[in-house]
Structures are given as C-alpha cells and as structure tokens.
C-alpha cells in the first residue's frame, strides 16, 4: 500500500522472529499517557492523481508566475539550460545523502570539488566550501568566522545590503553577541567609508549593492587594517567584474541562485562561501578534498572534517550539516555548460540590456537615475509618479517590479528598483515604456 512494500504475511513472520504478538506491542515503551493524548490530523489518504490535481490547482493560483519579472533584489530570472535539470534529476545524485562513504559517493564528491574550484575562480579566492543554505546565511557565517578570528565584538556593515541579508545577519549577530555598525552610502550609491570605525572584526560590503551599484572595493582592505574584508557578490556579475579577491577580499560570499537555479519563491537557494587559504581551518560547512585510494588512483573525500559538528561538536566552526548540495551541483553543471566565455557573454548581455531599458525609461522624462554610480543589471530610478501606483499599472500589463518599501527604508523615496536579465525581450521593454508613458497596452 502506498510506499510500504511489507505484506500482511511478512508482518506475521517478522513479528514471530521478534517474538511479539502484535505491532502494537512494539510501541509499549511509549508512555501510555503520551499515546492516549494522540490526535490524528483528520487527513484522508489520497491517490496520486488526487494529490496531483490539488497541488496543480494551488500552483495555478500563483498569478505571478506567468507574468514577466523585472524583479531582482538578490533573486533573478535567468535562463536555465535544460541540461541542468536533467543532471540533477538523476536519482544517484538526488537520492543520496552527505558523502560519508566516499567510495560510493565519488559522483557527489567530484562535483563538490569542481564546484569549489569554480567558485574559487569566479570570486578570485583560494578555496571555497561545498555550499551553505543561502546567500544570507553564508554572509552571517562569514561574520561569525571573522569574529572567531579577530574577536573584537564589532562588525561594520554597508547600509546598502539587501534587506533580507541584513535581517538574517542581524539575527545571527544577536545570537553571537556581535554588534553591527552601519556604514552609509554616498550620493553615487557607493559605500562611504569615511567614518569607518576602528577595532572591528570585519567590514561587510555587497556588490552590486541593494541600489544596483557596482562598488569600488579597491582601498578598502588598506583602510580596515587586519579586519577581514567580507564581500557579498552576485556570482553571475562576476563573469564580467574583476573578482573581489583581486581587491584584497578575505571572504567572498554570495547567493548562487543566478547560476542555474529557479527562483522557487525563495528556496531552495545556494549559499556560496570562498576565502583565502589561511582560513581553511575556520571555514564553515563541508569541503571536498583530493586524495588517492589504496591503488593510488585519484579520488575525493570530505576534507578538514575536524572543523565540523560531527567531530568537534560544541567547538565546531559552524552547526551546519545538511547544506545545498544538489543546488551546488546545479550551479556546477550550469557553469560547465556555459563555460567562462559563455558566462561573460551572459553577463555582457545583462549589463547591456539593463542599460538599454534604463535609457529608454529616462528618455520618457518620467524617470531619472537615483545614483551616479555604475550598475550591472539592476538599477534604481526616481520617478515623478507615485511608484506604487506605477507598480500596479505595470502589474496590470503583466510586468512585475518590486514594491519600493525597502528603498524607502534606505531613505530613497519615490523610486523603483528594476532588474533586467538576458531573458527580457524587446516586446517586454516596449510594453514597460508604454505603461510608463501612460499609454494603453
């Protein structure tokens, strides 16, 4: 019945082998008082077709999914090559667990090693781990790591972080007793480091930041002494941008969703974590390493495990166990499929198309750029119209932009943040411009 293949005959034979009269007997060790309080859910069993039809109906009720997203804010509508879902659907990958037995987990472990190599290359760092939950927890883990190695109790954080990153960082920092100090942005939209405090464990900067602006990372490392420079980066943009490692970053984290993962209403996501080699014993999470087998053949195992909770327990570098392995595999296949030149071409397409739409919107006379700094594929425009009203009119034409509330909380009023990926078409641009001009669509 359903997913349980044991038959009534099997049951009888097995109970006889155990020496019990009934299955009920097997639960006699649960206190009767507990068993007596049990209440079922009132949920009937359903056939596969009934379940499919109900869940499909719920999916269809998500009116946003067929609409055109100009939404960004850390999650982007990038194209996913078909080969990605094909590979990650192979059940040898998807139904395995953490590779505790390396001899029959070489698929997962080799892919982890490839992933670490690719993320190190993209970020310009020496090493990377095999993934964390998402970009937000990766950033929080970076703050915890910096505090572990520097121990000053304070971390400086750019004000121009995506709100969800700041929220999660705030929760973890409170748990660890770390004080967060906000660092403002200037009129260009870039970090204003002039008032940076001394005596910090780390400076955290995001690029491109929540205002869409590509940060200048040069000079920051020199300013903060031996504090760690932690950069949260958009990995797809790193196809085009000089990697943070080239500017002295100690840790680079990021949200890996842009590398072959669906938007998925915000999860599962993929936390990226890369660092300089000197922090290898401080890294959170799983890491694969190369070794040899008894015959001298190359193979891969989980490396540096003495950092981890299953060995070090209360003194581990992190509590993480389950991570985002299958999402990391998706990112690996994505990067292997597009290659370095292909990734740069995609990033080029993003930056070009975003500027094309921004220019067209500014030409309408209804918008002007909110900041002077350069942007990648996401930009903030100030508008003479009511941004919420405009947003609703755009939604009426099937185009989605984010509510401006988070910009307002950053002190940026009457503005919208608009993201453009390689998937956006000329027709969608035309429609956008028409709505802005107030024409009918």
């Amino acid at each position, binding site marked *: 019945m359903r997913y349980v293949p044991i038959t009534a005959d099997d049951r009888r034979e097995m109970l006889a082998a155990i020496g019990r009269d009934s299955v009920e007997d097997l639960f006699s060790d649960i206190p009767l008082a507990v068993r007596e309080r049990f209440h079922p859910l009132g949920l009937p069993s359903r056939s596969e077709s009934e379940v499919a039809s109900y869940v499909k109906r719920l999916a269809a009720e998500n009116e946003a999914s067929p609409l055109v997203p100009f939404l960004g804010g850390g999650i982007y509508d990038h194209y996913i090559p078909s080969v990605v879902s094909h590979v990650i659907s192979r059940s040898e*990958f998807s139904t395995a667990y953490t590779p505790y037995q390396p001899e029959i987990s070489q698929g997962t472990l080799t892919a982890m090693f490839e992933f670490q190599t690719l993320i190190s290359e993209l970020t310009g760092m020496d090493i990377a781990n095999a993934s964390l*939950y998402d970009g937000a927890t990766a950033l929080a883990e970076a703050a915890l790591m910096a505090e572990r190695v520097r121990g000053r109790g304070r971390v400086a954080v750019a004000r121009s972080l995506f709100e969800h990153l700041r929220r999660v960082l705030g929760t973890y920092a409170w748990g660890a007793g770390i004080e967060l100090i906000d660092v403002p942005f200037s009129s260009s939209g870039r970090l204003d480091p002039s008032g940076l405090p001394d005596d910090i464990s780390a400076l955290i900067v995001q690029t491109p930041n929540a205002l869409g602006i590509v940060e200048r990372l040069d000079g920051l490392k020199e300013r903060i002494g031996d504090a760690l420079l932690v950069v949260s980066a958009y990995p797809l943009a790193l196809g085009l941008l000089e990697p943070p490692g080239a500017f002295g970053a100690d840790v680079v984290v990021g949200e890996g969703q842009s590398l072959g993962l669906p938007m998925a209403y*915000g999860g599962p996501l993929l936390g990226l974590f890369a660092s300089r080699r000197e922090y290898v014993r401080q890294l959170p999470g799983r890491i694969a390493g190369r070794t040899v087998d008894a015959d001298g053949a190359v193979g891969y195992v989980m490396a540096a495990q003495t950092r981890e909770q299953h060995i070090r327990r209360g003194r581990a570098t992190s509590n993480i166990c389950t991570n985002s392995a299958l999402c990391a595999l998706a990112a690996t296949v994505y990067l*292997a499929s597009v290659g370095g030149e292909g990734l*740069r071409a995609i990033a080029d397409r993003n930056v070009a198309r975003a500027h094309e739409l921004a220019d067209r919107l500014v030409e309408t006379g209804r918008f002007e750029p909110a900041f002077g700094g350069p942007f990648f594929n996401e930009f903030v425009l100030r508008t003479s119209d009511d941004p919420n009203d405009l947003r609703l009119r755009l939604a009426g034409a099937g185009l989605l932009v984010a509510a401006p509330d988070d910009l307002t909380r950053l002190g940026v009023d009457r503005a919208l943040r608009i993201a453009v990926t390689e998937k956006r078409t000329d027709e969608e641009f035309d429609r956008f411009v028409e709505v802005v001009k107030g024409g009918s669509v």
Partner: protein
Amino acid sequence: MKTIFERSRADGPTDIVTGAIDAVRPAAWIEEDLLRGEAPRIPTVSEPVVVRHYTELSKANFGVDDGLYPLGSCTMKYNPKINEVLAELPGFAELHPLVDPSLAQGALRLLAELSEHLAGIAGLPAVSLQPVAGAHGELTGLLLFRRHFEARGETSRTRILLPDSAHGTNPASASVAGFTVDEIPSDDRGMVDVEALRSTLDETVAGIMLTVPNTLGIFEERILEITEAVHAAGGLCYFDGANLNAFLGRARPGDMGADVFHFNLHKTLSTPHGGGGPGAGPIAVAGGLEAYLPVPRIVRVENGFDLEWDRPRSIGSVQSFYGNVLVAVKAFAYLLRLGDDGLREAGEIAVLNANYLQARLKETFQLPYGGLCKHEFVLSAKGLPSEITALDVAKRLIDLGIHPPTVYFPLIVREALMIEPTETETKESLDRFVDAMRQIADEAESDPDLLRSAPHVAPVRRLDQTRAARDPVLTYDLKAPRGT
C-alpha cells in the same frame, strides 16, 4: 575520477543562453579597472561532453533508488516521484519571492496548510517553515529560548543540557546561539540518567535538547519526568525531530513536554536528500514562544493569505525568504498522499523493520543496549574476530551492494553501527542485509584481509582520508595543463 576540467574542450563560447554573442563593451558603463581582463578560466565543453561527464559521475554514486541505504539517523526512505513532478510546476518554481502576496496565493495556501499539518503532527500550536535544515531548526529554536529568557530578565540561564548520545549538531547549534553545553550521562539502559539530570538543574539552565527516540533508537521511558523536571526548574525543552519516523501517527512531541520541535522534511516526510541537501527543518513551538518566531509569518487573512512582518518580539529572520518552498511542496504532497492512515503505517513498519533486523542480528553482533528499539538500533563491531572494525564492516557492505549504516556514532557505543532500515524496504531486502552482515561476520574469521582491504567492487578502492586532512587539495589547479 576525472573532473570536468580534464574533459575535451570545444571551440569558442557556447550559445545556450545568449545566442549570437553581442559586441558589448561594458566599459561604456562600468570603470574599466573594475572589469575582468579575461573571462573566468572555466573551460568550454560541448553539451554531449557535459552530459557524459555527469552521467559517469552519477554512476559513481549510490542513492536510495540504488538499494538499501540504512544510514542511521538519516531516514533514507524512498522519495516518491510525484513529489518531484509537483515541485517543478512553474507556478512554484518560477515564482519570485518578492512578488506581491496577492499574486502568490496558491503558494501561501500550500505553506499555510503544510504548517497546520505539521503543527498537528507535533501537537504544538505554531510552526515556522523558515529553517532549511535540522541544524538550522535547532539554531532557530535555541534563539527562541534566548529571546524568551531575555524577555523574562533571566539572562543567567546560559546552559544547555544534552544527553551524551546527542547528535553533533545539538552542541554546535547551542554554541552558535550563544549557550554553553553540559552533557548528561546515559544510564546502563541507554536512557537519560534522570537523577544526574535533576542534580544539575538550577537557575543557570536554559533548557535541554532531547532526541526522541534517542540516537540508540530507544524511547526515553521517563520522558514526562524529564520534561517536567526541566520545566519545574524554569527551563525549556527542545526536541530534535530527526527520529520522528519512529512515532508517526502514534504520539506527539507536544504531549511529551516539547517547547520546540524540529522536523526534517528530508527525513520523515520523504523529500530527497540531494547528496547533502537541500532539506528543510521547520519548527513547531509551544504557544509561549510563538511571538518570537522568525519573520515573515504566513497568516490567514480575510479572503486568503498574507505575509506578516510586523512582529516586534520576533528574533528576525534565519533564511532569505520563506524557507525551502520547493521542499515544502514535496513534503506537502507526501502528507496528502499518506493521510493519517499512511503516516501511522509508515511509523509502524519503520519500527517493525528495525526490530526485525535487530532480532536477527543480535546473535551475530554485539547489541550494547538491547530490548525494544524504535526505528533504528545500534550494533557494535567490537568482539568480531581479527579485530575487524566498524569501518571494515561498512566497506565490505559496499561490495555486497548495500549502503553502509552510520558508523562510529553515537559516541557512547564503541565501534558503532547505527542501522535504520525505514519502512520502504521489502522483507527480501531486509533478509539480504541480514545475510550480508552474517557473511561479513564469518569472513572476519575466515578471511579478515578481505574486509580490511574492502571495498573491492566500488568505483574506487578505500580512500586515504588522512592524506586529505594533512595536506588538503581543495581545488583543481586551473593553471595546470588541461585535457585536450
């Protein structure tokens, strides 16, 4: 194994995503010194090469679909295929997290209904789906503890108590949440030593973390006494839900005194483990902790569902958005499919299967803590002839087509082999496992070197873990000559 970096390379960039490459000069918009001089050194390979490479890698893996995977504490049950189909529906997969909630009513309804079902299973009133792994649920729950004691001005409560059989994530999570950890010994039956617990309870104790049944697969008979004692001392009780499969449909943590309980949707509710993730670790909490739950909360409002952000006593957020939504879709489909009868049956057969294996193996292997087990049990390889270790047993099982059990855990059993068959195995498969284990015990006597040198038929022979730890090589050297 070869990496993708050593495979045949193709000419020029691929056109999968962008079609013809535009002549774009990003320097028109971004300062030139912020741009890469060269593209990332990721080789270009053709699609057939990509597919062959990852197909080859997949064949060097072992998943639940390949055979028995009795990895204790991980509940490697069958992952129904309908769950995968439903999670790929564009209505969920192509939904951006920042859309207006009015346009995501189906997803919010699913998440709300799943939350209500999970609350019902836990016997606790409120659920957050935001934590995305068991350890993440632990951390979230312990942060709720902290908020609770802060609100009461009881900041001296800094200690978390743990049985010595606890999962490693428990003490690690307690540390990340800012607590110190004290171990409570187990008694000679493998249960919490209640007298030792009582003697350490005072106003410095924030709470206890319990796994029920515990990691030996034993149900704490005195569970009500334990939680009452902790509550009487002003502490809170955290229940690690890794072993929920053992009492599905028969008991609820809320009725045992749990204040916070985490689910592992990737264990109990059949979502695939993904080679290590993504999973999901929702928590259910007692009413007194609800105000502290992460934001946003998914709430029912007139005519539908909404996200509630204005929760001033909340601990904040622990994940970017609303948790692992696609994992939630799979767990929801599983719950609907099973219903109450199916849940009860799953728990029942998981326990029957474990007790059957225990009964049939206890003559051959040492069973340090006997009696009734729940969904798993722990044997010891100690006492096998020729000083054969748990690791040797594990590696030889690979030769026999079976994924090894969890080894060397829990720490209180020497040479531990922690076996959890789950409910989705046939009796034939269980009997094959018994035969394999007995064969290995015989080989320990007759041919111990065969075990010490195992595996013999895996994609690689036994790997040198020490070398990887001593001199870690963690990335491929992209500067090195690549395959042609």
